[in-house]
């Protein structure tokens, strides 16, 4: 499923990141890559942005980026 389909409090493992190289490398340097475990911490109004926790780091993402991240819920 997609990251954007997860609910607040869900935990998941990243399966695939389907974005352009520059965004991908940015995500990697945040520790967001295939195999990373994440949890959903918050959504903003209208689910426009989502806050995820990856290895102790909180990261804000826009919905349009969250759609491109394939995850598996755990």
């Amino acid at each position: 499923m997609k990251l954007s389909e997860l609910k607040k409090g869900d935990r998941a493992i990243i399966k695939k990141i389907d974005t352009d190289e520059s965004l991908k490398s940015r995500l990697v340097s945040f520790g967001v890559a295939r195999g990373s475990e994440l949890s959903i911490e918050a959504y903003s109004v209208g689910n426009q942005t989502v806050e995820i926790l990856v290895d102790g780091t909180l990261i804000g993402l826009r919905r349009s980026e969250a759609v491109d991240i394939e995850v598996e819920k755990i």
Partner: protein
Amino acid sequence: MDAIKIVLAGQPNVGKSMLINAMSGSNSLKVGNFSGVTVEKSELCFEHHCHMFEMVDLPGTYSIRGFSQDEQVAHDYLLNEKYDVIINVLDSTHLQRNLLLTLELLKLNKKMVLALNMADEAKKEGLKIDVKQLEAIIGVPVILVSANTKEGVEELLERIHDIADREHRDNSNIIYSNPVEEEILALSNFFDERDFKLRDLSSREMAIRILFEDKDLYRELHEKPIMIELQPRIVASLEHIYTHHDSKNITDIKASEYIAIARGIRMETVKCERAKGQKTLTKKIDDILLNKVLGIPIFLFFMWALFQLTFELGAVPMDWIDAGFGAFGEIVGSIIPHEGTRSLIVDGIIAGVGAVVMFLPNIIILYIGLALLETTGYMSRVAFMLDGFFHKFGLHGKSFIPLVTGFGCTVPAYMSTRTLKSEKDRLITLFILGFMSCGAKLPVYVLFAGAFFGPEEAGNILFIIYIAGAMLGLVMAKILRIFVFKGEDEPFVMEMPKYRMPSLALIWHTVYSKAMGYLKKAGTFILAASILIWFASAYPKQPLLGAEYETKIEQASGDEVKISTLQNELKLKELEASYLGQLGKVSEPFFAPLGFDWKMAVALETGLAAKEVVVSTLGVLYAVGDDVDEGSASLIRELKANVSFASAMAFIVFVMIYLPCLAASMVFAKEAGGYRYLFYLFIFTTTVAWVLSFITYRILV
């Protein structure tokens, strides 16, 4: 002895700037709790135990290959400049992520020290870091420090000094995954057998670079005969790695190898003594502040409270300062016999500078509010909450940071747009930044809000003015996005820092240095401007006019009322005939439809130099022209008596929108990429300001 040149590199918000402050015992570098505080390199020299240290602070960068303009600065510096030692600053509580950059930095083959900052936080979170083990793996000295408590800082300086003297650095013992290690071994054995050397690279290093497709190395190898034998081996090696990783994208493979290494190192060196799964403080605060329904109302409430305080709390000392300057003016006035000198000092200098200084309390409160926003970690949260909203208006959530900085001063705000990656986002943000009223505009608002609204309302009015400016900025952003800067959307990915309780010292220094800056400006620039304005308002002298009125006054023969009317008339006529008056008259037709008299027009024009000058000009003009018998009425009362409500509101609107000060305009031109843009900005802001002021005036009049 030569100075040791040291460059600090690390991910954003790990405390590089604060560490330099701690090492040098100064407070000159700006510190804040969000990514992208430092956007330019800055240098600082200091002496420690008879050694000179030259520190270079770089913007934080998540990886060496820069993403945005500020990160590019770090990249270029690290690769191209000369320096002796790199201090790689890491956040001890986020070691794994920070190590990814360390792994890249190791490739630069420079002398390096790892400073594990935030040792105090790590201790609080129950993390135990095995420094010796980490040293053994990375191969460079590792020191636990805290820029906050200053522990380890002394040791860090000593180690830097040691390492600067040393010739070589130890090898690191970084282990890749098994298949990669096998291939590295195979390739490096091949190099050893052939006795092949390139630059000062070890065989292992060469093998690693080949496997991860280092372009420079390939280019160099290309011309070597060994390439013929090498090529099939590389293909085979890569094939093996591809199968293992189930991917043929070497960038992805490299990323997951690096992450695995970083994770491995962390597991080997960090022990957590605290039970997992506890709700952290940050999480608890986020549950409230990032609440889906309440988050934005809470933010608006904070802003409202800030402006309420700015007015209410600031009003008391403001009155004292105002009264103090008034009394001071009278005393000075009574001891200076010479008419012209007295007017210069009392009506020029004291009125002009006083009009600016009296708003210091308000400015300080505003700055405290902004400092809290910047240092607690709330700023990034608001950017997160507002991104959806901003995005609809064609702005990026990250634009929030320059926009908020703009409430303080527009100059650093323009510079902080460098954290925006997309050029279009950056330009739009630059163009609308002026609509965020800077601290120097605050005096104008406080003055007019104080003069035309009751004290209960004035705070709300301030809030409305600031919010209205921001809203207008959003609308303009949308218009610019649709008609001028069309283009792709930039993704929003942003780190949310931990909430931190800022130390009193940090807030103190942030606010103190800004407040001193404000006073210094009042004592220098504003002082000079006030003198200039006074001269322009007192000259050229009108001997004919004076003589004419003298005879009229004589003819009035003792009729007190008539004499004072005549004297007032004379003052007014003289002022109107002065250089400033002439300038005002020339531009009056332009401003007349907005309901501004020539004094207000002049204040707006001089305000192009600096926004504080708007009030000091009004101060001088109304002091010079004030009624003789009324004594020294305060500026607020003068305005109330001379300016209509509709004109005052239109004036506020105009000040809110028109071109920022000269210093900011220069920075704008530089950041936007040419004076051409400044010209556009001038046209853009003046048009919008005129039209909206006109509407305001027409509605209210």
